[in-house]
């Protein structure tokens, strides 16, 4: 073996109360596609931030091409040839593509030249992008392209990608992988972080598994099964959600030509959605973010009012009802954004429980709160859903994303809804917690509730849905039985990749 591109040796980083990385060592070779695996909180983010110069390790060393490498800040890391695509995109909505790219570069050329180079690189790698467009108006896939092109313009030696595919359609993932393989052939190493083990098996040559901040194993993903890798990450046997076959019940919720204007400038209007949801079924709704998911959840939960007759519940028109009136009759919802939408970050878990559960769980009388009862309800959610927190008095903000997600989903399920609408129920949640959430949704359906799961994770939808429909630019496709759908069929239902064809059109 020749000298590796990047060598990590004994990296340790401790935060008050938690060791994020403990004695982490591994090598990444030139042009190697290396996967970094681990559950939430395993220390992956801290490790890549160390490599990118955002975090200073307490001890340990790194070498890049044999030279000591200690970036004091991202600027130094970029100058040394390390580029990173962030999990939560580090983009500026109100600025255009060229400005966003200039911000991620050292010594950027004038805007006009950036625009020309963006066009050139986007052609070269099949990532069409208009440098003059405002980023806030782009789809998630296009926003990611901005990040990737920002990195590529610096000719990086190492490209770090943190959860890059969670918001992409299968076609977009395929195009991204082509791009990454091309880069790898050209000698760029890629450090790839993902929860999606099948993707890692398709793309990566090597994998390092972290658990509780330590390296617990390495493997060749091409020859290791996804289940084995998952168990290596979790450290125990993985529970796979179990779905029972059951006859479909009567229709409880019916949408009739549901249309609504976009609620804000970057929103999507809902167009003519007709749908029946039956008792005891899980209806999966797939689609790329920004195609009306948030608006559909808002229309169903009552946050966004619609014409009375557009939504029927057990035969009654309810389109005009506000969220609490809908909760009362049994329609509950858990929106996607945990902090600030599903939960108030600075309020305690008990208070957050009261906010949605007070109607159904009768936590108030004449406007006065029953604190004892509310605390018991919050404790019930914490126990039933294995939420890791010292207790219900803790602020929602103090929970990790996965734990808070378990809490907000559990809070709705524990209220025994008749219709439950969830958006991205396992976004950013690790494998074992995701399995637990999915199982809880299936159990709820088995008890006779209708469950609508909106997600961008198609594997998840295929695992738990009875029927599948796709949301595309505010329109919903006709639902089809989920069993037997192929990836290609789903891709077509999703409307294909957005303007991905451009690069392949022959003149």
């Amino acid at each position, binding site marked *: 073996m020749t000298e590796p591109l990047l060598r990590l040796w004994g990296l340790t980083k401790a935060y008050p109360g938690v060791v994020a990385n403990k004695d982490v060592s591994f090598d990444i070779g030139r042009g190697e596609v290396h996967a970094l695996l681990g559950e939430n909180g395993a220390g992956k983010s801290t490790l890549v931030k160390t490599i990118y110069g955002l975090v200073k390790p307490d001890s340990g060393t790194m070498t890049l091409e044999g030279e000591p490498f200690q970036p004091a*800040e*991202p600027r130094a890391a970029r100058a040394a040839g390390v580029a990173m695509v962030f999990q939560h*995109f580090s*983009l*500026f909505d109100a*600025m255009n593509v060229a400005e966003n790219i*200039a*911000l991620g570069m050292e010594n*950027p050329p004038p805007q006009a030249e950036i625009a020309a180079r963006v066009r050139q690189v986007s052609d070269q790698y099949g990532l069409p992008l208009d440098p003059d467009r405002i980023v806030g108006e782009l789809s998630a896939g296009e926003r990611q392209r901005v990040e990737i092109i920002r990195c590529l313009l610096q000719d990086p030696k190492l490209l770090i990608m943190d959860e890059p595919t969670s918001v992409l359609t299968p076609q977009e993932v395929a195009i991204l992988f082509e791009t990454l393989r091309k880069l790898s052939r050209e000698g760029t190493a890629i450090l790839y972080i993902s929860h999606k083990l099948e993707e890692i098996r398709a793309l990566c040559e090597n994998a390092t598994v972290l658990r509780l901040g330590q390296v617990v194993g390495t493997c060749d993903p091409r020859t290791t099964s996804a289940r084995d890798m998952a168990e290596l990450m979790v450290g125990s046997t993985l529970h796979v959600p179990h779905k029972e076959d059951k006859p479909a019940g009567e229709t409880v919720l019916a949408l009739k030509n549901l249309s609504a204007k976009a609620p804000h400038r970057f929103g999507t209007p809902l167009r003519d959605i007709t749908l029946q949801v039956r008792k005891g079924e899980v209806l999966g709704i797939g689609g790329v973010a920004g195609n009306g998911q948030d608006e559909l959840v808002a229309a169903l939960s009552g946050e966004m009012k619609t014409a009375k007759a557009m939504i029927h519940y057990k035969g009654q028109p309810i389109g005009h009802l506000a969220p609490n009136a809908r909760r009362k009759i049994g329609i509950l919802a858990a929106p996607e954004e945990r902090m600030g939408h599903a939960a108030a970050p600075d309020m305690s878990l008990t208070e957050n429980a009261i906010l949605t559960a007070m109607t159904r769980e009768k936590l108030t009388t004449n406007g006065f709160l029953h604190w004892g009862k509310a605390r018991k309800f919050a404790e019930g959610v914490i126990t039933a859903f294995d939420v890791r927190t010292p207790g219900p008095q803790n602020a929602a903000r103090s929970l990790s994303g996965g734990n808070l997600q378990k809490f907000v989903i559990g809070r709705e399920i524990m209220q025994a809804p008749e219709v439950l609408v969830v958006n991205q129920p396992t976004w950013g949640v690790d494998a074992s917690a995701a399995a637990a959430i999915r199982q809880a949704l299936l159990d709820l359906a088995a008890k006779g509730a209708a469950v609508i799961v909106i997600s961008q994770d198609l594997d998840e939808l295929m695992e738990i849905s009875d029927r599948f429909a796709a949301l595309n630019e505010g329109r919903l496709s006709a639902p089809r039985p989920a069993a037997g759908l192929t990836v290609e069929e789903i891709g077509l239902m999703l409307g294909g990749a957005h303007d991905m064809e451009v690069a392949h059109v022959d003149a």
Partner: protein
Amino acid sequence: MDLSSINPILLLASLMVAATPIMLAAIGELVVERAGVLNLGVEGMMITGAVCGFVVAVGTNSPWLGFAGAAIGGALISMIFGFLTQFLLSNQVATGLALTLFGLGLSALMGQGYIGIKAPAFPDWHIPILGDIPVIGPIVFQHDPMVYVGIALVAAVWAFLRYSRAGLILRAVGENHEAAHALGYHVVRVRMLAIMFGGACAGLGGAYLSLVRVPQWTEGMTAGAGWIALAIVVFASWRPGRLLLGAYLFGGVTVLQLNLQAAGAAIAVEYLSMAPYLATIAVLVIMRAGRAPGSLGQSFHASR
């Protein structure tokens, strides 16, 4: 009422003078807000600048040094706000309001021995050739230098935000401070510099009142000009070009209503006094407000 007593040339000329203090304060606040900081202490920084400028100008008998002193005084008092909000993460709204109250008190204390004194003269420029053009000359080209400094500052801020790398970074910090930090920009440093610039500009605006417009020191002499500057920034959608327009509009209606009062218009004085505020707000609202910087008013702390 005798409308013929209003001289349109004089009216337009005094419009530029009346607009200058709010324009100076507003352009500083615009930069602060584009960096994502809401400093409601403009009034306090203005009056501090007014007294600092007056004290220095009287002491040195040089209005230019007075303006320099006002800028330094405004920047210094803005540093209190910057330290509290950027390092101690105090609430920006509350801290800004406190800064206004503090500035009013501090200036009254500093100005005690200076009441009734006249400021050293700050002569108008008579710009050769341009100043001799009929009508336009007296309106535009025969003012004191600070009028042109104000316009130049607005133009410079516009070009800075639009064309310079530093301006791009400043906008990025105001738009999404988390992302800017992730890309390796120093959010707090950029914001501190912006806050100091805002303080210096507010100081200049205040000194323009005490050295040119009035020109003497009286307690509370800014009389709400700082609040108008704040409002103009918002109504101008954080754009320098519109800010210039808003400031001139406000200045214009102010001068006009004073003239109408002098001419004995048959409208109650109270209504005339309201006019500049109403007119400015109405016009800038009709022009459709733009989007505020994404991180405006939020505290930033680089955790994890």
